[in-house]
């Protein structure tokens, strides 16, 4: 759009608003990370300054690595997130393809049934989920978390992916059928590669809540061996409430991996949101 009279004042005002809010959004995160590299005195005396040679200290990180089991927590989180993500994407895409591609009697009903989970949070089933996990001896295993997160991620994944799969050219799939592809080959070889961007979007949407979840690790897998990083950080901070160095370091350690992942995938995520995937 051509704005003939796009005034300077307007541009300045726009930037002022955005810079102000960006500061509000980033300040707390920056504050935590910066102070985690300082000595205890410096944290309190001059919380807003960067660490210099005098105030620089890794004491917090040393405490965390000496006392906490963070490498292990991190590994648990990674396993749970990756496994759930894989299952959500695979099973979600398969179901989405069935709903988008085939006319069959229960199609609409099936779509509606699978969409209930978008509206009703799985957390409300916790009481019964715990009973079930106890009965099947899955409490304090990562498998319990993977199962729950897969179920939690599927409805939205199916919903978004089937929208995208409807856009894949019918002609292409039909060309495959005439060339003798099975329905499975058509799905895996033709359709999946074409919806890769949508898969990436769904992956980010699915991943963030799983990585950040506190509720289910707390209830289903609170044992030391299966603690996720989110739960680990929560428990650890609870124990070291007065050790500011340790607390700030723990928070920084918990922020950084997510932040890095976010920066890698942010284009994908933002494109996903703005392309109207969430409607």
């Amino acid at each position: 759009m051509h704005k003939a009279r796009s005034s300077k004042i307007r541009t300045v005002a726009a930037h002022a608003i955005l810079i102000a809010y960006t500061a509000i959004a980033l300040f707390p995160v920056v504050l935590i990370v910066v102070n985690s590299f300082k000595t205890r005195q410096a944290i309190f005396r001059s919380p807003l300054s960067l660490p210099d040679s005098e105030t620089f200290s890794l004491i917090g990180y040393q405490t965390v690595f000496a006392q906490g089991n963070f490498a292990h927590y991190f590994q648990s989180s990674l396993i749970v997130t990756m496994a759930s993500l894989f299952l959500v994407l695979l099973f979600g895409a398969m179901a989405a393809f069935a709903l988008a591609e085939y006319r069959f009697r229960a199609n609409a009903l099936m779509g509606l049934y699978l969409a209930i989970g978008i509206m009703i949070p799985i957390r409300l089933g916790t009481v019964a989920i715990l009973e079930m996990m106890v009965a099947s001896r899955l409490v304090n295993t990562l498998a319990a978390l993977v199962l729950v997160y897969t179920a939690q991620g599927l409805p939205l994944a199916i919903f978004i992916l089937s929208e995208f799969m409807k856009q894949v050219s019918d002609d292409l799939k039909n060309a495959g059928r005439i060339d003798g592809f099975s329905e499975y080959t058509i799905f895996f070889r033709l359709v999946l590669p074409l919806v890769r961007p949508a898969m990436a979007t769904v992956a980010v949407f699915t991943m963030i809540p799983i990585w950040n979840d506190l509720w289910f690790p707390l209830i289903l897998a609170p044992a030391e061996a299966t603690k996720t990083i989110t739960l680990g950080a929560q428990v650890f901070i609870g124990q070291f409430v007065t050790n500011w160095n340790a607390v700030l370091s723990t928070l920084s350690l918990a922020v950084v991996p997510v932040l890095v992942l976010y920066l890698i995938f942010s284009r994908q995520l933002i494109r996903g949101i703005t392309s109207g995937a969430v409607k």
Partner: protein
Amino acid sequence: MGSLKLENVCMSFGRVNVLDDIDLEVQDGEFVIFVGPSGCGKSTLLRIIAGLEDPTSGCVRIDGDDVTLTPPAERGVAMVFQSYALYPHLTVRGNMGIGLKQAGLPQDEIREHVAEASRMLSLDEYLDRRPAELSGGQRQRVAIGRAIVRKPKLFLFDEPLSNLDAALRVHTRLEIARLHRELKATIIYVTHDQVEAMTLGDRIVVLNEGRIEQIGTPMELYRNPVNLFVAGFVGSPQMNFIDAARVGYPDADKIGIRPEHISVDPGKGDWEGTVVHAEHLGPDTMLYLQSDQAGLVTVRLFGEQYFKTGQTLYMTPQPERLFRFDAKGAVLGRVPEAA
């Protein structure tokens, strides 16, 4: 070999009848066009022949075998799609060869088939490119190549030219005609473009609202349409339809006369009219005349001819080209035959 027979093919989605009792026989080597307005069922019929859609009832026979429930890949058909439908992740070579690979042909045989098709369509220099690196016309040739490689009994074309620009369309039309001559293949071709239909087809099947209105050679349809729909659909500009009673044919409901079968004269003629508008196309001139008797009439004149808007002209239809239709739209026979 490649003959096709459709017996009582019906198709309905819910309560909507998309195809109603279609019977058709296509001989080996014939080029048959399905033409009709959008939504007439021509594409659905093609998809039923391909096996992409199951008919609600009826039977599809290829070379005499009932293939109604045979999967598409086992029918020996090849299809060229409107959107080309090339596999985006494969090269031109891969696109053309994949059907044969899927059928389990040995490597060198596949290479031979691909090379032959590529030579025919002059695709040799593009064999290692991917579809995204090709122009629209090249993609279309690859799509045709993919069909040729399979050496099918039946070629199915689904509006293959509608995504091309006008110049390329003419070129590809000639190409398809040449391929038909060289391969002597049986071709079923769906289009809504009547120039394609008239120029390519040995026979044309005119479909409307899920029924076959008429089957015939292009000139049969032009000269002897069986009803109002076919008369109006074939030929451009459209045939003029005039209230029969107002121009003196009391035994018919409407009469029809093509614009090119009317002559005009400033002095005398059957119907008086005034020039409303003239379109100069170069080779032809289209005149639109408003007549008290006949309503708005289109007249097609050869060459460059100039008339003033508002000028009075007299129109005379060629009597042997005049059609009479009854109230249901069926042709009652030409005027001179009745006279």
